C-alpha cells in the first residue's frame, strides 16, 4: 500500500513537471499546429528570469527574499510571453501551414537563444539596443515618405549596414572605456543557482512517506495553471475567439475576428506558460543555457500521446508517462512481478533512470500502434482530407 502510494506520488511529481512543460506546447502545437522547437528555450528564459528576480529580492533582505517566487512567476510569464510574441510576429506568422519549416526555423531560434544567454553582457545588449533603435526607428520614420515602396529595398539595406556599424563601434567604445564592468557576461555559460524560498524547503511526512514541499508547490502550480487556462479558453471572449480560429480560420476571419491578433495572443500565452514552467523547473534543477533542451522531446511526446488539440489528453498522458517512468526507473515494477525470472531480469535491466527512458519511449511507440492519434483523438469527416 505504501509502495503504491509512494509510486503514485512520485509518478505524479514527475508527471506534473512534464505537464507544466507541455501545457504551453499543447496550446501552441495542439491549437495552432505550430511545432516550436524553441519552447524549451522559452522555459529557460523563464528560469533565468526567476534567477534575476530572486537576486533583486535578495538584496532587499528579509521578509522579501522569501516571497520572490510569486513576482517571479508573473515576470517569467511576461518575459517568455514577450519573446514568444516577437517570435510569432517576426518568424512564425510567415510559416503558418508549413509545420516542418516552422520546426527548422524555431530550431535556429533555439540555438540563438541558447548562445544569447551565454554571451549576453552590457556591450551586446547595447549593440542590440542601438541596432534595433536605429534600424526600426529609421524604418518607421522613413516609411512615412510617399515614395517609400520604391526606395524600401535600398534604404533598408543601407539602414541595416549603418545601424550594425554604429552598434558595433558603440559597443567597442563602451568595452574599451569600462572594460570588465560591461564585458563580463550577465549569466555566462555556467549554471546559475535558484534557491527555493525557505518555506518551500523540506517537506511533509505522511506515514513512512515524505512529500517534498517543492513538489507539492509544483503540483498546485500546475493545477492553478490548468484551471486558469480552462477558464480562459471556455469562459472569456478571447478564449472563445481562440477556439473559433482553431476550428475554422477562414470563417472566423469572415465574422470579424482579428485572426492575426488571436494567433499572436495564443502564441504569447503558450510561450508565457513555458516561462511559468521555467520557474517550476528552476526549483528542481539547474538554470543554464541547456535547461530547455532536456525537456523538449519529452514534452512533444506528451502532446502526441495525449492527442493533439486536447488538453485533457495532455494531462492524462503526462501523468501516465510520469508514473511509467518512475515505476520502471526505480525498479518498483520488478518488485511487483517477483515470480517470473525472465520478466524480472528484463525489468531490472531497464531499472536505471537512463534505461527507463528507453523503455518508456519504446512503450510509447507501441502505444501509438493501437492509438495512432493519441488517447483522445479528434473525430469526424474533416480529420484526414
Amino acid at each position, binding site marked *: 500500500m505504501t509502495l503504491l502510494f509512494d509510486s503514485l506520488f512520485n509518478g505524479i511529481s514527475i508527471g506534473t513537471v512534464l505537464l507544466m512543460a507541455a501545457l504551453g506546447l499543447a496550446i501552441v502545437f495542439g491549437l495552432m499546429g505550430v511545432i516550436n522547437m524553441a519552447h524549451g528555450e522559452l522555459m529557460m528564459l523563464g528560469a533565468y528570469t526567476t534567477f534575476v528576480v530572486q537576486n533583486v529580492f535578495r538584496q532587499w533582505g528579509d521578509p522579501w527574499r522569501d516571497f520572490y517566487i510569486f513576482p517571479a512567476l508573473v515576470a517569467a510569464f511576461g518575459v517568455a510571453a514577450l519573446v514568444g510574441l516577437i517570435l510569432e510576429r517576426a518568424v512564425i506568422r510567415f510559416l503558418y501551414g508549413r509545420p516542418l519549416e516552422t520546426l527548422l526555423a524555431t530550431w535556429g531560434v533555439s540555438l540563438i537563444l541558447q548562445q544569447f544567454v551565454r554571451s549576453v553582457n552590457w556591450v551586446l545588449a547595447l549593440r542590440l539596443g542601438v541596432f534595433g533603435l536605429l534600424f526600426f526607428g529609421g524604418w518607421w520614420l522613413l516609411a512615412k515618405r510617399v515614395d517609400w515602396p520604391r526606395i524600401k529595398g535600398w534604404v533598408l539595406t543601407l539602414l541595416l549596414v549603418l545601424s550594425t556599424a554604429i552598434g558595433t563601434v558603440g559597443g567597442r567604445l563602451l568595452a574599451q572605456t569600462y572594460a570588465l564592468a560591461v564585458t563580463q557576461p550577465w549569466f555566462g555559460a555556467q549554471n546559475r543557482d535558484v534557491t527555493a524560498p525557505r518555506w518551500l524547503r523540506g517537506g511533509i511526512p505522511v506515514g513512512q512517506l515524505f512529500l517534498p514541499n517543492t513538489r507539492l508547490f509544483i503540483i498546485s502550480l500546475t493545477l492553478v495553471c490548468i484551471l486558469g487556462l480552462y477558464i480562459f479558453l471556455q469562459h472569456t471572449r478571447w478564449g472563445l475567439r481562440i477556439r473559433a480560429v482553431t476550428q475554422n480560420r477562414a470563417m472566423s476571419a469572415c465574422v470579424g475576428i482579428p485572426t492575426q491578433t488571436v494567433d499572436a495572443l495564443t502564441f504569447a500565452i503558450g510561450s508565457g506558460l513555458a516561462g511559468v514552467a521555467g520557474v517550476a523547473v528552476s526549483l528542481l534543477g539547474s538554470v543554464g543555457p541547456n535547461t530547455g533542451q532536456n525537456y523538449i522531446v519529452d514534452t512533444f511526446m506528451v502532446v502526441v500521446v495525449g492527442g493533439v488539440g486536447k488538453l485533457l489528453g495532455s494531462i492524462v498522458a503526462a501523468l501516465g508517462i510520469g508514473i511509467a517512468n518512475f515505476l520502471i526507473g526505480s525498479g518498483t515494477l520488478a518488485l511487483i512481478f517477483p515470480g517470473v525470472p525472465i520478466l524480472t531480469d528484463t525489468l531490472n535491466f531497464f531499472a536505471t533512470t537512463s534505461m527507463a527512458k528507453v523503455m518508456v519511449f519504446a512503450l510509447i511507440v507501441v502505444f501509438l500502434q493501437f492509438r495512432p492519434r493519441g488517447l483522445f483523438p479528434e*473525430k*469526424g*469527416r474533416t480529420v*484526414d482530407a
Partner: protein
Amino acid sequence: MLTAAPIATRQILQIQDLTVSFDGFKALNGLNFSLDEGELRVVIGPNGAGKTTLLDVLTGKVRPTKGCVLFKGKDLTKLKEHQISVLGIGRKFQTPRIYQNLNPRENLELSLNPHKEVFPTLFGRRDLRDKVDALLETIHLVHKDRIPAGLLSHGEKQWLEIGMVIAQDPDLLLLDECVAGMTDKETEATGELIQSLAKNHTILVIEHDMVFVRQIARKVTVLHQGALLCEGSFEEVKNDPRVIEVYLGSHKRG
C-alpha cells in the same frame, strides 16, 4: 475489365442497412441501395443528406458503424482504400484532386500502371505511351501534357481527374459533382463524355446541377438525412411530393 454483363440485371453493388455515425451524429442512417451492372445512376439530395459519406464508405475512406456493402460479391467494409481501388472502384473527387507537381502525362501514367505493388513499379518495364496519348485525346489535354498539372484551369483539372479515374479502368466509377465550377460548354462536353463512358462502365454520379442531371440521368436516387427517400426516373423524382418537400421545404426555411 469485365465487359457488358450477359444478364443486364446482375447487381454489381449492394448496400444493406448502412449506418455511419460521427460522435453520435448519423451521416448515414440505415441506407439500403443497389446498383445494376452497366447502370448510370445519379444520386441527389440536399446538403447533409450523406451523399459524400456514401462515397467515402464505398472507397474505404470511412468505416461504417453498421451494415454491409457488397461489390461484385465482396464485402468492402473490411478492405483498405487501395484494395478497393484495385478491385475496380474509381473515384473522382468533388474538388479536383490531381498531383499538382506532376504533368498530365505523368498523372495519367501513374493511374494506368497495371502493377501497383512496390517492386513491379520500380523494376517493371512498360510502354504506356499509346494509352496515355489516347487518354489525353479523350480529355482534350494533348497540348498541355508537359506542364505541371497545378497550372491547369479548374475545368481542365476536373477533366484530368476524370481521365485518371478512367485510366484505372474501374468497373464502377464514382463521380462526385464533377461539373462544379465548369462553364456551360464544358459541362455539356462532360455530359457527353459520361454518356459515352456509360456504354461500358457502371457509373454513380452525385450531382447538384439539375440541368446536368436532366442531361445524363436515366435513373435518379434521392437521399435525405442519411437514408433513401425515393428512386425513379428524373421526371418521376421531380414530381414526387416528398422530394419537393425536402428541397422546397428547406428552401422556404432558408
